[in-house]
């Protein structure tokens, strides 16, 4: 099953890996160029400083105008959308294409349990997605985040909420989108519909993640408030901690999504008269029963 899963994923893995490599290169090369411009302008941006202490005024970019600012904006766009794109590339065709081409009827009638088919494919896609995004996220966080932080356009400030300058959040975003697109593909069975549903679900998922992360943060705050030493370390609701909690919320969403996928593939016969596994082939079946 591993061989088949990897063979079917191969073209998408190549595209995702290429996108990851190109994005990483853009982030690294862009950061280097920005640093040169920053140094030439006499601006000191030594460390990543989420609170912007001593850097520049709020809503005023203190990167040199022109190339440095433009590159920083490109890097922000990369950090914002590459996790989504990698998730879509790997997740959308994962099951939707098989159902669309009816090859699921072949593989599901071999001696392989349905759940193994689903989990093997999903596992490889999630792993590949996580690795591809991690490369971009690590490069971004270590080399570029200190510069993109001081690009102070309102629109880019909104985009910052979508990547949160966090490796964990970016990786979990890809993992969640891959799982979501895969499960939607299982249920819907059409590539284009899967793509549309997943893209539309993306902002909603980010909002849910932020709300979930906030609730987790508040819970930790309440749980640690009795101890001064613990409350100094946890429940501080700093940018890093919030991003971590948001990533955790996305992890929970991913688990729920995979569990829904398991029910679609192998529904409990006692509990559900609805058979989502049949839905994708519904109109095809209705045509040629």
């Amino acid at each position, binding site marked *: *099953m591993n*061989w*088949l899963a990897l*063979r*079917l994923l191969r073209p998408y893995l190549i595209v995702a890996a290429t996108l990851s490599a190109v994005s990483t290169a853009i982030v690294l090369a862009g950061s280097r160029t920005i640093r040169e411009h920053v140094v030439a302008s006499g601006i000191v941006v030594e460390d990543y400083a989420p609170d912007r202490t001593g850097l520049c005024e709020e809503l005023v970019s203190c990167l040199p105008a022109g190339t440095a600012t433009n590159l920083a904006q490109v890097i922000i766009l990369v950090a914002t959308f590459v996790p989504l794109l990698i998730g879509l590339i790997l997740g959308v065709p994962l099951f939707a294409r098989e159902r669309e*081409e*009816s*090859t699921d*009827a*072949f*593989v*599901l*009638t*071999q*001696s*392989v*349990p*349905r*759940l193994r088919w689903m989990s093997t494919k999903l596992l490889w896609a999630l792993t590949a997605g996580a690795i591809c995004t991690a490369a971009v996220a690590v490069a971004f966080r270590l080399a570029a985040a200190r510069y993109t932080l001081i690009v102070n356009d309102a629109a880019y400030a909104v985009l910052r909420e979508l990547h949160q300058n966090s490796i964990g959040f970016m990786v979990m975003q890809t993992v969640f989108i891959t799982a979501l697109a895969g499960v939607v593909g299982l249920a819907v069975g059409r590539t284009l519909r899967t793509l549309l549903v997943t893209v539309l679900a993306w902002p909603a998922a980010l909002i849910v993640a932020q709300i979930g992360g906030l609730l987790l943060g508040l819970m930790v705050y309440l749980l640690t408030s009795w101890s001064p030493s613990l409350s100094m370390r946890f429940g501080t609701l700093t940018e890093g901690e919030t991003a971590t909690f948001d990533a955790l919320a996305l992890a929970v969403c991913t688990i729920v999504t995979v569990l829904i996928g398991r029910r679609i593939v*192998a*529904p409990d*016969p006692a509990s559900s*008269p609805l*058979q989502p*596994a*049949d839905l994708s082939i*519904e*109109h095809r*079946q*209705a045509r*040629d*029963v």
Partner: protein
Amino acid sequence: MSADRTTPAVDVAGLTHRFGRRYALDGCSFTVPAGAVTALVGRNGAGKSTLLRTAAGLLRPDTGAVRVFGEPAGDATLPRIGYVGQQAPLYPMLTVAQTLTLGGRLNPRWDAAYAHRLADDAELPYTAPVGTLAAGHRTRLALILALAKRPGVLLLDEPLAPLDPVARAEMSGTLMADVADRGTTVVLSSHVVADIESLCDHVVVLAEGRVRLTAEVERALTGHLIAVGATEDVTELDDIVEVRTAGRDATALIRSTGPLPSAGGLSWHRPTLEELVLGYLRAPRPRPKRKVTTT
């Protein structure tokens, strides 16, 4: 595989499946004995594909169940089922050789030597991607995958439709050889009776999602008669399955286990399988069984 001959290979009990409001299957019940070659015959949309997909575990019925060698159709029965769907869906990007290798990877009882022998017999090009194969070759490859899995029951959804006459004969021969050698049970669907007439020993006629007839072919043929004659004489007969009129004459398919009658101004003969099946397919609805007098 076929050791326990008392357990039906396929037991369909009260099977109902709907797509939206439309009934694809409506309370279907029949059994397929182990080792039998059963033709599932019906018009387009009769529910043949749905029934086979349900038996293969690809669909879950709304009500009822399919048992394969006594076990509910699903993951547990997969190693005992060989399924070939309509249009024989296979991975188009894999070559024939890779597809055969894949069969080995996905099936623990895979018979590689048998698969290669069948592929050689079919003159399949090993290095060609499946997507470039003609429909007939693709169907034969799908059948090879199903056979080399060494299943107890083969579920074939219109397997002969895309084949040329020579390939049909070869594929029928391959199927029959497997049945003879291993006692494999075969359920194959078709809407062309001529395709399966020489293959099957049992027949199930499906119409509008319901089973109209399920019987051993020989018994079904000896249990029916065709009467041809004046419309008023024909329509007075009992136990008519279906009657067709053409001008003042009529032809009726009737149930009868007796000998060929010789009187009554009607012409009588035993139906062919095609006449029998067409009669049941054209019949508006199942009629209650009554005793018939043919003298």
